């Protein structure tokens, strides 16, 4: 008998449904954490945290260093400076999330299992969001804790009570926008390199157009053209620091929300078990 093993048995154990996105999430995180280069990137992404922690220590212990004492702007600046690690993590991890599945025809494997398209998308989204929050929200919150520890009192925290929700809200806005945009692009192609280039082009090209228009018009009121500038403008509002562009912040917020909605529509259309060419 050419069958190698006749011992196939029926399964009599338990089954549960509705946790497929958790399976996708944990498998994705585990796969990334087994990559040494990825771990190195994660460590490098925390360098700013270490620098800021040293800054907080000096400000708390040396009165001559009052100039480097933390403020709300410090935390806003922390997020600005994390833009580069956020970009690298997004391109590295996000570009392949759906593109690789499309290349290997894995979508029909996933969607032939008892999971919905939304569960699949949420599972993939959660992988990218988790790592992005790990390099934005987690260190920012830890910086607040570090400040309290080094200062030995809650003065700064009570004076800036809005910082915890501000950090949380801004981190979520940034991570959701970036993750949704990247996931939508990833669903458009089976080539993850192409997706990465497309994302970089979207960021840099929109910024370049803004800079050209700013020079022509002499005004920053066209900042809504640049995706990154919209996020920065919304961030300034959340952290209650002076706005850096003349664009009304609701316009920037509308662009951010619009980008998330468009990304959702793209994902809804592209994530299917079968590609229909009418």
């Amino acid at each position: 008998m050419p069958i190698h093993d006749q011992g196939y048995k029926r399964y009599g154990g338990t089954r549960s449904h509705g946790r497929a996105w958790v399976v996708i999430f944990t498998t994705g995180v585990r796969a990334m954490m087994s990559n040494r280069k990825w771990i190195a990137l994660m460590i490098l992404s925390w360098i700013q945290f270490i620098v800021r922690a040293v800054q907080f220590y000096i400000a708390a212990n040396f009165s001559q260093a009052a100039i480097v004492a933390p403020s709300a702007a410090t935390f806003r600046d922390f997020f600005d400076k994390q833009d580069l690690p956020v970009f690298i993590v997004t391109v590295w991890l996000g570009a392949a999330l759906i593109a690789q599945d499309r290349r290997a025809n894995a979508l029909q494997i996933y969607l032939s299992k008892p999971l919905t398209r939304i569960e699949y998308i949420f599972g993939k989204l959660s992988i990218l969001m988790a790592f992005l929050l790990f390099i934005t929200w987690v260190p920012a919150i830890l910086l607040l804790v570090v400040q309290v520890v080094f200062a030995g009192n809650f003065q700064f925290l009570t004076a800036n009570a809005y910082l915890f929700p501000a950090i949380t809200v801004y981190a979520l806005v940034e991570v959701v926008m970036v993750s949704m945009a990247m996931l939508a692009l990833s669903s458009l192609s089976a080539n993850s390199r192409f997706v990465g280039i497309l994302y970089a082009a979207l960021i840099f090209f929109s910024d370049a157009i803004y800079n050209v228009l700013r020079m022509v018009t002499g005004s920053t009121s066209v900042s809504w053209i640049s995706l990154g500038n919209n996020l920065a403008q919304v961030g300034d509002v959340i952290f209650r620091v002076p706005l850096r562009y003349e664009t009304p912040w609701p316009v920037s917020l509308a662009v951010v929300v619009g980008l998330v909605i468009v990304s959702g529509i793209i994902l809804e259309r592209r994530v299917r078990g079968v590609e229909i060419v009418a």
Partner: protein
Amino acid sequence: MTETEPVVSLDVVSLDNVTVQYGSNRALNGVTAAFGRGAIGLLGPNGAGKSTMLKALLGFIVPSHGQMRVLGLDVATAPIDIRARIGYMPENDAHIPGLTAVQFVAYCGELAGLPGADAMQRAHEVLYYVGLGEARYRNVDTYSTGMKQRIKLAQALVHDPDLLFLDEPTNGMDPKGRDEMLDLVRDLARNKGVNLIVSSHVLPDVEHTCDHVVVMDKGRIAASGAIDALKQTRGRVYELRVKTPGDIETFFDRLRAAGLECHATDDDVVRVFVPGDGGAHQLFSLAAAAGVQVRHLRPSVATLEDVFAQAVGEA
């Protein structure tokens, strides 16, 4: 069309007037069919609508009209419950990249709702069952075509489905691998109590594994029933070798005009289906009228190929 008979009383899949449309092309055109328990072959030429039917049953494609039921559940309202109880082996190469075989199959088990430990144990068992036990720690990306076919079967089996959809299961396999795959499919249906729908255009594969067939052509059901019953056609089949003064197609046209079905085989023999009681006499008469010498004529047993050719030809 060949006379349709009810397949079996307990249907695992039923379609009622189902239409699936891609733009102006109707991939399924008012299909009404029933698939009973056991192994059912879904036959048809390329583009007949076999894969479309399976994808519609999986909920990948929403029909523009009609109703489908799988294992007693409505596809439109309970697709998740249905997918929890079925396994799907897609036609084309499909896997989750970057994983070893055992990781891939266990992952599929977990996606289907099995606890992690159970999924891993089942993955090992199923990989041994499909003949990939020794290669289970290899990355699936490095697998040969035949191995990829086997792992597609393994991922479809890991959660122990009640119904398996196998879309062209022997695609790209060498003869030995093909035989082993067919034995597996047969074993699942005969000994393991798994219901199967085997979509294929390779007739011997279906004949080897299935007792019943549904023949599709141009988005419609051309014939369905037990293979043995379908072979017992009202008429006779003859194998014929002739010498013609001109083009043999002219002779074929005469046969067809007289209501006879004919198709050439690979080895210079023509198989002719003579309906009713006409018999060999009718064949000789037509050959004489066309000036064709009959060099060889032998009554033959109807095969699934005859059933298929007749069904598709008439559709």
